[in-house]
């Protein structure tokens, strides 16, 4: 049987006195597309931020390819807190697209895409440029490569952000409410790119999203989070069309009504 690429084992996370994750267990298989839905404050963004090492869990273990993310063995075979080198090694398999894009405003679109492969992976600049141009073409921005982020629309910025993350060839890609900061008419173009990526197959994807129809369309599995626990999980149609728990029903009704 195939091994999961990411495993959350009883993950807990508190901010001060507030416990936002109360023991999360979750396996992600290679190539699997998982959508996280739930009310705001349910902890769904925290789940992916922990994997990206933007936050540190207060309890539990996260494993990537069977390797512990936050702990490592030192020379005496003791488990110690992971150092930067260990984190960077594991992080190489993970990419992330942010709600607010977080493009580098002082670099052109092309430079945004070329930076990490050139300085982190130390690849040849000419090769990187070629790949970056291909990647930007794929997201439909080949005519914008020399512009700065401030000259783009939100949807275009988000497509650049995806190209930039893809340049690192991650095995797991995290999407943090990538359409929430966009004007409604720009959401479509971004979802289109993600859909293409999902169809291409081999990359695992974890999406925190409010786009239910979209989740239904591309996800292999949908997780409903509520107050720091996974309340219900299953196939998209099962979750979205035939919800079992009252809270999920409640959430879905409120969600459809508010649209």
């Amino acid at each position: 049987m195939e091994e999961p690429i990411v495993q959350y084992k009883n993950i807990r996370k508190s901010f001060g006195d507030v416990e936002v994750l109360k023991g999360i267990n979750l396996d992600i298989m290679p190539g699997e597309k998982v959508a996280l839905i739930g009310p705001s404050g349910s902890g769904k963004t925290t789940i992916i931020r922990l994997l990206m090492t933007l936050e540190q869990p207060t309890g539990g273990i996260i494993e990537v390819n069977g390797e512990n993310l936050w702990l490592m063995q030192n020379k005496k075979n003791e488990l110690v807190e992971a150092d930067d080198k260990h984190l960077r090694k594991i992080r190489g398999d993970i990419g992330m697209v942010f709600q607010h894009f977080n493009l580098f405003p002082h670099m052109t679109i092309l430079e945004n895409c070329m930076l990490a492969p050139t300085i982190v992976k130390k690849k040849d600049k000419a090769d990187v440029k070629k790949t970056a141009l291909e990647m930007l073409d794929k997201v439909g921005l080949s005519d914008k490569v020399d512009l700065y982020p401030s000259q783009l629309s939100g949807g275009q910025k988000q497509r650049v952000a995806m190209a930039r993350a893809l340049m690192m060839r991650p095995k797991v890609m995290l999407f943090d409410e990538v359409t929430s900061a966009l004007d409604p008419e720009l959401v479509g173009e971004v979802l289109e790119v993600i859909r293409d990526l999902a169809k291409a197959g081999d990359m695992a994807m974890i999406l925190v999203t409010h786009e239910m129809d979209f989740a239904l369309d591309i996800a292999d599995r949908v997780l409903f989070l509520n107050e720091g626990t996974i309340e219900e999980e299953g196939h998209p149609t099962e979750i979205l069309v035939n919800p079992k728990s009252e809270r999920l029903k409640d959430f879905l009704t409120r969600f459809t009504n508010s649209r």
Partner: protein
Amino acid sequence: MAITEITLMLMRGIKVTLIVLVLSIILSSLIALIAGLSRVYHNKLLTGFTGFYVEIFRGTSLIVQLFWFSYALPGLFNIHLGSDIWVAVLAISLNYGAYMSEIVRGAILSVPQGQTEASIALNLTRFQRMRHIIVPQAIRMMLPEYGNYLIQILKATSLVSLIGLTDLLYYGNIYRSTHLTEAPTVYMIILLLYFLLALPLIGFTRKMEKVAKKGVVHG
């Protein structure tokens, strides 16, 4: 003509003024960058030490520091910098380096958190993050204030005559002491010369204000 005579006399001092100005700008900028970066670096000893330096130099007065250095360095520490120019440059640079390190620190801290997160997600090292993402953006943000400080440094160079350097003001004072009635002309010309030196710095500051407003330099 008195005006030509006075101007010619003053020209003998402009070299010292310019040397002190240029050296002070270079040295204080270096100090500001190093001290500013040390204050955001996660090392208690380093942060504490630079914090101490900054507070001492911001808390006392430049003119007092200038006198202190010019008497204490040779007397107390037996350090002879060769010429008083270096005493002046050192005092001015340490003083303004302390002030400007605060704008470096402020600018670095004002780079949005998302930039750090994106750098982590792209697996950049801490050094790469500073060098490619944070510092270039911080520099852009601090340039207008930096320009203002350059004008302050220019004004501060007038103090060096007080420790015996033969700058613009020194020659002005010499001339005035022998031509008392021409004092208004002498000081007005000195002020105008300083203003001429300040004009490019004023222009630089205004331009940088526009750049910083846009956030990004295009092209």
